[in-house]
């Protein structure tokens, strides 16, 4: 029976999408006629609601009856969640199969977002109540009160909705075997978002453990459309002999759905050259909000959310109810916004990705995306929010923040229309995550190392883990993994008589539970509201204390602020009064412009796929007609004054600007890869006598600026561009630079915290004592010198290579451009370079520049105080 939602409507108009046929592909196990397969209670409930179960939902049910793990791929609005739970609801209608072996927990649902779990619970409780099914649904997240969490271990519900971190905690309990003995199904939601990350690694290990505790359990993965479903199917399946064949689960894939209706905003006001705020578009954004029922305004970063929210309210004469939602806001505040959205009380919400994933929010009929979406998949998933009926087009408006973003938006739009996707890249499981998992397993009870290794290698990210690396990680957990074997007596794991490893002392379990989780974001500083103190708070003034917590700030950003600086948080403008005990005290600022924090773009770099499209677009002047006039003009000017980069080459320019010589490169490989490239090229330029001072990088280009003239060096032959861009920079130069850089320190710190080497929280009170912790940077330095092969250093390097530094991408870039450099020496800055030069990004400098700056400042000080020769102590000014 066809679902009524398959009927399409086609209307005239340029931008309306066409309906596409549903293509539901199932595995050989055929789906029976819908109603016949459903128990009476369910069937009549469907009839009552006027709904019909869709083919893919019935197919998944058939899979569950056959006890086969499955991946369901469908766009938003296809009823994935109901599909995921239908088997459990069906099972609840039928008489139980046998005696309970454990606590009676049958279905576990895992989502990456707390809010999602809460929302699903809300949506499930209703039908269960209406069908009078004798089962309970509960959530378990970081927000669940301890008393309920304790009760859930003893008397769990039949269906538990939770997060990966909670799962890690649950399997680390001594009662884990009892808790999961009756588990039949694990539903994994938004799988595409979870898998390619350390959280995914940890989850895969948790699932491997569940398979051991409940051998009959099946996994159901729910995912948005992705380029390569095979990778997710492999991730879901238990791997047995990966060197012969990768096991895959079955898959059900839904294609089609209406083409999205996406437009790029064009305004009368000129597009800025370099900006990430999109302030210029506020009037149009407000007009769009007024013309729709409920709009979500997506931005890439928390800080952009604050700014846009602020700007919208400044112009919000009609007082439309507009709310703000992002991860730094107080939890209670976020819940309020979510509830108001679902109840239809809001007209718009400005949000970052916390609202991103599959939550079914009321009647969203427009998605506005501020700034470039950075990836086609992200765009598609986000616009899926608007109008979640499959066959009607979702509506989205892209608002580029500057000229270059117009290109990105255009590329993203075309990609979305073509249905193209970014790939989910399968990663090797992190060793620090494995360490955390092993410690958790030890907390549950003694284990046989070889058995655990076999279990762990059934998880795809760890399928290739060899004996040696496993042992190193066990050693890391037990004694810290040091070449110097001095910690045997302090070991956290000890051997039992029968060759198992056990936790040496219960307090290690306590430590573990306090620190679990891989979401090691940039540490956050709590912001408390207080009264203003007038002049900037100095040491020695009255103590700050108490005050309501307004939210949190990124520690790096907080570090840039001085007392007296103003910033925006939770929609309010606040003034920094003081830092005390790792908290920030701020008062309400008077009405003046807040600081716009310098954040070059969002956290995500331009995806490879989009970058390719942008390069192609630039090289095809006949396509510029589709671009707004100022942007097309800009590109034409570039063609006149310099040259346009073609997809197969990389453009390199030199010019003199702002009192410095610039060497500009246009790789289009994303900000992270460019930053790494900048660091490495700076070193090389230094050796060639180029006297570089620093560099700027954004998603499409980078510029190294300095005192030396690279054009002259190139002309005279002293600088060879081919040699400069040789891939060998990823060898010694990279190693040497990695040795010094603070990026590596930060990466190492993440790994050390995840692996449990550095604790985030101690049992007992945290004193304001400087001796309570040792900074990760100091540990890193000592470890590098005395134990360079340490497993955590290796883990950090791997992270840096794939993540922060995007070394893999950089390597591919260098190989691609080998021998294809187009060099254009110029007198003045080229049009294409202008946005980069105007960028208010952080100027990253290499290690030596700090030392030089210190030296310069010291010399200046000595000269000024006339103490150049003697260097006696000076008065503080």
């Amino acid at each position: 029976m066809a679902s009524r939602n398959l009927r399409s409507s086609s209307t005239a108009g340029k931008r309306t999408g066409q309906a596409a046929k549903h293509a539901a592909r199932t595995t050989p196990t055929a789906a029976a006629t819908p109603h016949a397969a459903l128990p009476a209670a369910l069937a009549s409930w469907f009839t009552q609601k006027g709904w019909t179960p869709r083919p893919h939902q019935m197919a998944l049910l058939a899979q569950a009856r056959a006890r086969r793990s499955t991946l369901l791929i469908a766009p938003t609005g296809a009823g994935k969640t109901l599909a995921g739970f239908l088997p459990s609801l069906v099972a609840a209608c039928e008489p139980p199969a046998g005696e309970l072996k454990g606590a009676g927990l049958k279905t576990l649902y895992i989502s990456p977002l707390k809010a999602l779990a809460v929302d699903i619970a809300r949506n499930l409780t209703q039908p269960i109540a209406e069908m009078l099914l004798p089962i309970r649904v509960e959530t378990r997240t970081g927000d669940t009160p301890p008393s309920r969490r304790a009760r859930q271990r003893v008397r769990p519900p039949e269906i538990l909705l939770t997060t990966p971190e909670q799962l890690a905690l649950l399997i680390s309990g001594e009662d884990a075997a009892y808790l999961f003995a009756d588990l039949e199904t694990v539903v994994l939601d938004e799988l595409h978002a979870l898998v390619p990350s350390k959280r995914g690694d940890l989850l895969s290990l948790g699932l491997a453990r569940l398979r051991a505790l409940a051998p009959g359990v099946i996994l159901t993965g729910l995912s948005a459309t992705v380029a390569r479903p095979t990778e997710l199917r492999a991730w879901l399946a238990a791997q047995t002999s990966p060197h012969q064949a990768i096991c895959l689960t079955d898959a059900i894939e839904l294609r089609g759905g209406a083409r999205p209706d996406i437009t790029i905003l064009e305004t009368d006001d000129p597009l800025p050259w370099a900006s990430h705020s999109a302030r210029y578009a506020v009037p149009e954004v407000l007009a769009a909000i007024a013309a729709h029922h409920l709009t979500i305004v997506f931005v890439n970063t928390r800080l952009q959310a604050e700014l846009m929210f602020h700007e919208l309210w400044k112009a919000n004469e009609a007082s439309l109810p507009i709310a703000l939602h992002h991860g730094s806001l107080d939890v209670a505040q976020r819940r309020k916004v979510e509830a108001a959205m679902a109840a239809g009380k809001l007209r718009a919400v400005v949000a970052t990705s916390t609202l991103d994933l599959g939550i079914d929010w009321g009647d969203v009929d427009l998605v506005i995306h501020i700034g470039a979406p950075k990836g086609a998949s992200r765009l598609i998933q986000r616009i899926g929010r608007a109008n979640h009926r499959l066959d009607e087009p979702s509506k989205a408006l892209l608002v580029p923040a500057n000229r270059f973003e117009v290109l990105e938006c255009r590329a993203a739009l075309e990609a979305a229309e073509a249905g193209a996707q970014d790939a989910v890249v399968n990663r090797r499981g992190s060793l620090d995550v494995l360490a955390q998992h092993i410690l958790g397993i030890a907390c549950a009870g003694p284990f046989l190392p070889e058995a655990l290794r076999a279990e762990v290698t059934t998880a795809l990210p760890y399928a290739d883990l060899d004996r040696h690396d496993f042992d190193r990680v066990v050693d890391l957990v037990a004694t810290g993994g040091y070449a110097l074997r001095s910690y045997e007596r302090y070991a956290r794991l000890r051997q039992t008589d029968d060759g198992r490893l056990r936790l040496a002392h219960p307090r290690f379990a306590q430590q573990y539970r306090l620190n679990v989780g891989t979401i090691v974001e940039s540490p956050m500083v709590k912001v408390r509201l207080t009264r203003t103190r007038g002049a900037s708070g100095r040491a020695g003034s009255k103590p700050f204390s108490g005050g309501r917590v307004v939210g949190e700030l990124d520690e790096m950003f907080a570090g840039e602020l001085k007392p007296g600086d103003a910033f925006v948080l939770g929609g309010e403008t606040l003034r920094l009064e003081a830092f005390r005990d790792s908290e920030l005290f701020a008062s309400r600022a008077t009405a003046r412009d807040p600081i716009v924090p310098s954040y070059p773009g969002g956290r995500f770099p331009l995806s490879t796929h989009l970058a390719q499209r942008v390069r192609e677009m630039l090289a095809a002047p006949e396509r510029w007609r589709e671009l707004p006039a100022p942007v097309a003009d800009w590109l034409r000017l570039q063609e006149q004054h310099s040259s346009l980069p073609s997809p197969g080459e990389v453009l390199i320019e030199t010019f003199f600007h702002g009192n410095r010589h610039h060497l500009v490169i246009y790789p289009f490989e994303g900000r992270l890869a460019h930053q790494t490239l900048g660091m490495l090229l700076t070193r090389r330029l230094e050796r060639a006598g180029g006297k570089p001072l620093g560099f700027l990088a954004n998603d499409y280009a980078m510029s190294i600026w300095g005192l030396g003239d690279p054009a002259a060096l190139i002309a005279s032959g002293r600088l060879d561009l081919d040699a400069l861009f040789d891939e060998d920079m990823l060898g010694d130069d990279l190693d040497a630079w990695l040795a010094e850089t603070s990026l590596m320190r930060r990466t190492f710190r993440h790994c050390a915290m995840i692996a449990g080497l550095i604790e985030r929280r101690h049992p007992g009170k945290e004193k304001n004592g400087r001796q309570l912790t040792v900074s990760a940077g100091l540990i890193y330095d000592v470890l590098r010198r005395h134990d360079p092969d340490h497993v955590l250093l290796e883990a950090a390097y791997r992270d840096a290579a794939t993540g922060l530094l995007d070394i893999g991408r950089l390597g591919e870039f260098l190989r691609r451009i080998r021998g294809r450099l187009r060099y254009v020496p110029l007198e003045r800055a080229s049009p294409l370079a202008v946005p980069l030069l105007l960028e208010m990004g952080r100027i990253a400098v290499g290690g030596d520049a700090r030392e030089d700056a210190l030296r310069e400042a010291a010399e200046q000080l000595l000269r000024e105080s006339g103490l150049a020769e003697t260097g006696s102590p000076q008065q503080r000014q």
Partner: protein
Amino acid sequence: MGATIGADATPALSFEARAMQIRETEIVADRSGALYVPAEQSLVVADLHLEKGSAFAVRGALLPPYDTRETLRRLAGVIDRYRPRTVVALGDSFHDRRAEARLSQCDLSALAGLQSDRDWIWITGNHDPEISPSVGGDVRTALDLAGLVLRHEPASGPVNGEIAGHLHPAARVLLNGMRLRRPCFVASSNRLVLPSFGAFTGGLNVLDEAFAPLFPAGTFGVHLLGSTGVYPVAGSRLCPD
């Protein structure tokens, strides 16, 4: 033999070390965080906190067991450059009372090697109020040297030429838009506090109220430890944490 800096040499406008004066006594602040007193050919280091790593390990935080080795390595380096007649360890040389027992044989030998051919004085600190003979040297609670008083913890109340440790001074500075936080010497014409020398030791910002009683009316100068030099820093560049 390494390069020596004898009693009369004053470094030129290089930043490898900075010559200063406390009262009438000439001293040299070295880029390693050590202090040299030319008149007595004595080298002073503070807050070594040896075996801090293992102290954490005892409590279950398995920090790398190499901090003692690294601290002694750096100390060997600066001893090699100055060839002092006397080395003074200005308190908190050991992270806790049992630290000496946790020292490895290897580290004990390294220490003994540094102690041979010279005098070695351990000043007691709050972390190490008692020091056993097994680590060599002489133990004192304070020391008079070249007209200055050397003690671990800065005295409250007026002093007349004091060198102390204990506070682990560090400075956060703003330079060309970059922020840097490093250990530092902090001094007036009357007293000086050394940075902590130990590999795993952190620092307390000189703008913290703990320093205020020592330097009335904020009259102090800061010398920051860079990677290859020690640099005077203008007060206007100092930032709180």
